[in-house]
């Protein structure tokens, strides 16, 4: 077993895997905060502009919802292809990790927006009504009631988002984004180097599992603190 592992993780493999891992982490670390920002913004907008929401603008809500659904409905590979010209416009190149970050953000923001929306939908109407009855402004309700109340669910959804981002970097890898996905495709698929493919997959697995573990821990800790579990 040890022998097998030593063979698997030999120096040449690590020389390929380590920079790729760093690239993946770089893309995910930069894309995550951007996606979280826009996802929260869009998710909250969707929630409050609903016709029964805190600030109803039904026309905006319907149109915006339709746009988000449209991006969601497209396969992520297609969205990446469509996003490449936008990347070129924003960062000047249409390949490499930087371009990929833009594409990743465009693919993942609609997903996260819907996750945010459903997280805050779980906050009971009664709590929102209580805040309203005390004369809280929409802003107070969002930042002092909705988001703190939804926090444990939001954290779980942050993790879902980050894991989705990791898996989409792998798809983006096929478009020259670099990262573990590209390594897996280039070496594993095109050159039949199964050992490199295996290591790339292992690293991805470790990343995803540890993220999930951390997220679960954090979310449970908050629920415990609030004595909800």
């Amino acid at each position, binding site marked *: 077993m040890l022998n097998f592992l030593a063979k698997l993780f030999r120096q040449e493999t690590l020389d390929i895997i380590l920079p790729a891992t760093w690239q993946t982490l770089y893309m995910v670390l930069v894309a995550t905060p951007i996606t979280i920002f826009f996802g929260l913004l869009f998710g909250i907008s969707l929630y409050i502009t609903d016709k029964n929401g805190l600030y109803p603008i039904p026309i905006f809500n319907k149109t915006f919802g339709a746009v988000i659904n449209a991006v969601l409905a497209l396969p992520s590979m297609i969205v990446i292809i469509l996003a490449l010209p936008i990347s070129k416009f924003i960062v000047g190149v249409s390949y490499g990790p930087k371009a990929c970050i833009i594409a990743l953000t465009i693919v993942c923001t609609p997903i996260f927006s819907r996750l945010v929306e459903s997280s805050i939908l779980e906050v*009971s109407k*009664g*709590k929102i*009504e*209580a*805040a*309203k*009855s*005390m*004369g*809280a*402004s929409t802003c*107070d309700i969002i930042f*002092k*009631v909705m988001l*703190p*109340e939804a*926090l444990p669910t939001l954290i779980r959804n942050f993790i879902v988002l980050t894991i989705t981002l990791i898996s989409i970097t792998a798809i983006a890898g096929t478009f020259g984004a670099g990262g573990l996905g590209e390594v897996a495709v280039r070496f594993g698929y095109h050159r039949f180097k199964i050992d490199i493919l295996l290591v790339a997959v292992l690293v991805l697995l470790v990343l995803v599992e540890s993220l999930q573990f951390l997220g679960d821990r954090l979310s449970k800790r908050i629920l415990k*603190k*609030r*004595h*909800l579990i």
Partner: protein
Amino acid sequence: MAVPFIEIKNVFKIFTSHKQEFEVLKGINLDIEKGDIFGIVGFSGAGKSTLIRCINGLETISSGSIRVGKYQINKLAKKDVNIYRQKIGMVFQHFNLFDSRTVYGNVSFPLEIATKKKEEIHNRVLKILDLVGIVNKKDFYPGQLSGGQKQRVGIARALANHPSILLSDEATSALDPVTSMSVLDLLKDINKKLGLTIILITHSLDVVKYTCKNMAVLENGIIAEKGSVKKIFENPQSTTAKVFIKHNAHLSNPYLSGEEVC
């Protein structure tokens, strides 16, 4: 005659759902004096909750007028609505406490949104928690409290910003009889100590009998009867009141009275 503190005149509320119109309130007229504990009773669906929500503007009325003190509710500008609501406390059947905040945090919430100073908030919260008798629980989360304690926090939160009215939406309906009684005692106590006007909606006549001075009976969106609690209990006129009072007196279990049950 003096001008009443709360004046509800010919209020209609129509809900539209799937292009169908539902008349929930059909011309409500009600005067409530300052310092009263006013009970509104009725069966489920009679419009009690809608009426109480019209008073603090959580529902907008379709026609008529509501005046509370100097505020004409149906003519309030949008920016004034929140300022007005900060002066009306409301307690709920299911408490609606914020699970993300401690008891202290829940009670300080209405003061925070009214942008009070930190020190003022601190003093006020402790004072109010002391008044409702849960100052020792200030660092607990709602998840650690019993139903009665939660409702005390709910009442403390409603009282925090010196309201002139307390609206109670079935505040004791989710509590056991003993706890319910202690919460009602608290409301009576607050009414006496602070001179606060309390409007209490309930489907329990016991609650009204125990707590209120005056009452109104709501029946399918109209006021079937109103007056002092004493008068209505002694001589009920409306069907709802009659049914309520009759049920109250004659609710008996055949197993206890020794009748044959087959």
